[in-house]
């Protein structure tokens, strides 16, 4: 079975999580992060730019980091995932 297509909000959350786990503190390439999030590189870059514009990822020189707002967003998404799991709506 094909997995359910992710919505934009879920993709944002996946990128932020991957970023937080892999970039904050480590030096991993964006290509690697795009693989982690199962996104083609061009689409990944587009979403990343949107996250920077939304203030969820900060870009200083060439360094990228998840902001407080980004972390709150990830937390909100995790709560939703817990709720859906407890409702038996996601495996």
């Amino acid at each position, binding site marked *: 079975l094909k997995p*359910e297509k992710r919505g934009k909000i879920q993709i944002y959350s996946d990128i932020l999580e991957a970023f937080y786990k892999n970039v904050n503190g480590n030096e991993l390439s964006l290509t690697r992060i795009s693989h982690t999030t199962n996104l083609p590189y061009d689409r990944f870059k587009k979403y990343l730019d949107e996250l920077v514009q939304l203030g969820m990822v900060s870009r200083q020189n060439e360094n990228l980091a998840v902001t407080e707002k980004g972390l709150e967003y990830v937390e909100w998404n995790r709560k939703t995932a817990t709720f859906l799991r407890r409702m038996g709506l996601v495996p």
Partner: protein
Amino acid sequence: MSTEILVISEFVSTALALVLVYFFSKAYKATGFAYLLGLPIGFSFLALSYILLGASLPYEGGGTIQEVLIWSRLIARSYGFAFIAFTYFFSSKTERATKRFLGIISFFSATLLLFVFGFMVITPPLELPSTAAVDEGFTIANLVFLGYAIYSVVRRLELSKEPIAGLWAPTAFFLLVLNQYSSLIWEIDGSQTSFVLAHCFRIASLLLFIRVYESAGRAKH
């Protein structure tokens, strides 16, 4: 139970169902999964059915207005449970199935509109079968829908990870089953105890669903 208490009970149930509509809408917005639309739609129909039941109470002597309100309530209630069951059915399906689900929503909505149109314009309500004659059939259908929802939730239970919190959703659905079962008993023998229990089970169930959402916000990840 006096009419005033019943109206208050319907009002409380409506308010609780609308809170759940809000929570489920947020979950849909967060994920973007189309099948999740079934829950806010389902609970909206349930809220509508509670409003219609409350509105029918002042016309307790029978007559056209009460029949129309009760018919509409029966349809809204079954739609509500059907949408909840459909949500579980499509939760394990693919993207193509999700689009089919949206098609079903459109089909059901069109059917509902035709029903309402028939009630109001084409078929005089008094020529329809009495609601007392069909009430049991609707309730049995609701029990089937709820049974499927419980089966789906239990199948995905992870009690080893969350022994208590994992049981709240199936318990809430089970309380809705008891609500429908008590309604069925009341429809058959007119027992006042069953009627009171049906209302208690319903409010307890809606409160428990709210608890599921509220506790997810406090869960450690």
